[in-house]
């Protein structure tokens, strides 16, 4: 969730926003996109070729080739780059990469795993997919994790989020919660102190104070791009902290409840008055670019952005960015999300052992050390291991470390709301139908932000859509 196609924002950041250069950045985007596709095609072809040669030669098990499907987030790109290190340690395992933007990856692996095609030996999936797919019997569980892996070092909320029925179905590559970023310099100018735990009413006031579009600074940047992993991830946490919920105990949708109306009115008000123009096309990546370019006074989003924003190579505001917990309105329950990108092995894989070897390597302490050594400690995959947060090198490089750890440890997907609910998951509902629900509700809310519907109309429309889905799926009669 979140860092989707960072190449785009990298291009944007490097090239600034003036017009002549925008063309370059679009070319860059197209190129990155094209490369991702081309890479996949060639990788697939090479994979087939290798498979063919192996079959022809009748070589039995001397060399195994595994195919890994992953997201093109910066952390995963580093993993791909470090493949030679893996090969040094395990010369008998070859690795093919299929690297795609988040949405496309999700489509590919969902189609692959539900049809049992077996094109991939390792899939990058999230906390939403892992328990559902584990329940469907689509994934190979991690039963006997070797002691050297030190499973207890992996943060418990993250482990729990990747388990179903007491079995762990994926190992986390990086994990994130959400938090607030703000511009220390702007807040200092006005003599405002941001508490560690701000409230949404304060945030609204500050947004008003700092909103000056003429100088290119918008009060607050928030996600508006429709999608269950985009605007709905943020809005889900906002509704939670306004003490709303997706469903009551009997799975009746609650989208027209006063809490939802309050939360959505608040959100729409905030982004239309003090947000950048074009909110409905801003997702994680776009906001990351805006904030790192100095266009936002505040931003509430994934903790994984911290490394990027605090890195002078990628951010213009590296020395000016402040960190706080995600704001709360009424209740702290579910005010910040929990997400992890994790590696899992589909049942359809025929190379489970080799795949397991790779996953143990890529999610190990040693891997984190390796990235720290080669890429710098600020760039290590965050949020997965306690040892990372005890490592003096990391603590020195990452001023946000403690804040992130606290956010992840206090995010509890089993108690996402103040009122009782029949589901788990903070910024999503852990049922297969949620992708459909989140997609449709996300569109309705984007429609409200764009001024096509009033809050009441938009939510009534969303409520009707969710009721229909739940009725057809058999939750409601």
């Amino acid at each position, binding site marked *: 969730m979140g860092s989707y196609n960072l190449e785009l924002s990298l291009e944007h950041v490097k090239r600034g926003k003036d017009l002549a250069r925008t063309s370059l950045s679009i070319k860059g985007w197209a190129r990155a996109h094209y490369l991702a596709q081309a890479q996949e095609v060639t990788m697939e072809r090479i994979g087939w070729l290798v498979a063919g040669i192996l079959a022809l030669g009748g070589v039995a098990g001397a060399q195994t080739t595994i195919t890994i499907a992953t997201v093109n987030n910066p952390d995963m790109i580093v993993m791909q780059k470090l493949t030679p290190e893996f090969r040094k340690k395990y010369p008998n395992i070859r690795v093919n990469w299929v690297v795609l933007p988040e949405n496309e990856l999700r489509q590919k692996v969902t189609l692959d795993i*539900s049809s049992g095609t077996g094109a991939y030996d390792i899939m990058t999936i999230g906390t939403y997919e892992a328990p559902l797919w584990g329940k469907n019997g689509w994934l190979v569980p991690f039963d006997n994790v070797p002691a050297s892996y030190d499973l207890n070092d992996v943060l418990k909320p993250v482990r729990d989020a990747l388990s179903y029925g007491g079995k762990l179905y994926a190992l986390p590559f990086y994990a994130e919660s959400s938090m607030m970023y703000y511009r220390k310099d702007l807040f200092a100018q006005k003599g405002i102190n941001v508490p560690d735990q701000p409230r949404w009413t304060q945030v609204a006031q500050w947004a008003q104070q700092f909103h000056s579009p003429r100088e290119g600074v918008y009060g607050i940047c928030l996600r508006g791009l429709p999608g269950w992993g985009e605007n709905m991830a943020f809005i889900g946490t906002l509704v939670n902290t306004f003490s709303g919920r997706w469903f009551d105990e009997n799975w009746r949708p609650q989208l027209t409840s006063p809490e939802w109306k309050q939360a959505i009115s608040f959100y729409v008000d905030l982004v239309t008055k003090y947000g950048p123009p*074009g909110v409905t096309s801003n997702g994680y990546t776009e906001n990351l670019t805006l904030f790192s370019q100095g266009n936002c006074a505040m931003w509430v989003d994934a903790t994984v952005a911290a490394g990027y924003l605090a890195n002078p190579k990628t951010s213009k505001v590296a020395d000016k960015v402040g960190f706080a917990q995600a704001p709360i309105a009424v209740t702290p329950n579910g005010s910040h999300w929990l997400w992890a990108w994790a590696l899992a092995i589909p049942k359809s894989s025929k190379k489970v052992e080799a795949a397991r070897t790779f996953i143990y390597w890529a999610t190990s302490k040693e891997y984190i050390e390796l990235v720290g050594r080669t890429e710098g400690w600020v760039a290590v995959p965050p949020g997965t291991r306690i040892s990372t947060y005890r490592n003096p090198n990391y603590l020195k490089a990452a001023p946000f470390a403690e804040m992130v750890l606290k956010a992840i440890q206090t995010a509890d997907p089993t108690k996402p709301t103040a009122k009782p609910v029949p589901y788990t998951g903070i910024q999503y509902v852990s049922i297969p139908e949620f992708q*459909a629900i989140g*997609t449709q509700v996300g569109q309705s809310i984007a*429609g409200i932000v764009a001024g096509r519907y009033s809050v009441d109309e938009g939510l009534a429309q969303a409520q009707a859509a969710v009721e229909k889905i739940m009725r*057809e*799926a058999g939750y409601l009669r």
Partner: protein
Amino acid sequence: MALTNVLRRRKPFLAPPTFWLLSPAVVFLVLWTQVPLVLTLYYSFQRFVLVNPDLRGFVGFGNYLSLVTDPAFWVSLERTLVLVLSSLGVTLVFGLALGLLFFQRFPGRAWMRTLAISPFFVMPVVSALIWKNMLMHPVYGLLSWLFRALGLPPVDWLAQYPMLSIVAMVAWQWIPFATLLVLTGLQSLPWDVLEAARIDGANPAQEFRYIVLPHLARTLSVVAMLESIFFLSLFAEIYTATSGGPGLATTTLPYLIFLKAFAEYRIGVAAAGAIFAVILANLVALFLLRFIGRNLRAEAIG
């Protein structure tokens, strides 16, 4: 007439087994075109949700019912028609105008023609990205810069005028196609008739109305037919620029089918949507064929 009859009657000594020689191609064609359709039809009667393997089986018209009771479906039908008809109108008018313009003689005409036709060769995804990020972006876009330079507030095109923006992208890409066909049509314009009209004292407006336009009727109806078939399945622009939104403002039938299949993983419902799309395309094609047919007949009589 007599000759063809002779040819047809004469049986060669070694008649080639026409039927058998043709059959592989025919069988291939039938398989190629009909198998996907039959499969779609099959899946449209199945409850098939990729992410929920427990729910599977025959549901009769359940998927169709789910679609027609979905307000989004009717909105998408309306949006599809709005998109097709307005894009059609814009491309026909501008295509005709540009075709007439480039038919005139002027220095550098060959170059200008090539340039004018070039948008047609840009891939839809690329053109949509350029429109979205370079032209219409409310912060970085050329239009926003222009508006600001004129002292106007920048417009967030894709949020405030989503359908207009999509029609603009589609028109930019397809006007060259209409222009190209109009140009070829004009090349067969009978000069003697035109000259006769001029001798009779017809003014340019009358020339256009009574000679050029009737002459181009067939060309224009072919353009309309081909374009509407392509416009009915427009996808790349919507996927890239607006993702069907905001709200349902640009959710056309193809995009709705995509959402059902790849955002909701409801293959059955998506298949039912595809069947509706086939019906819609056939209705439009039928309507246009009738229309063109009448035109051709009228021409033959006139």
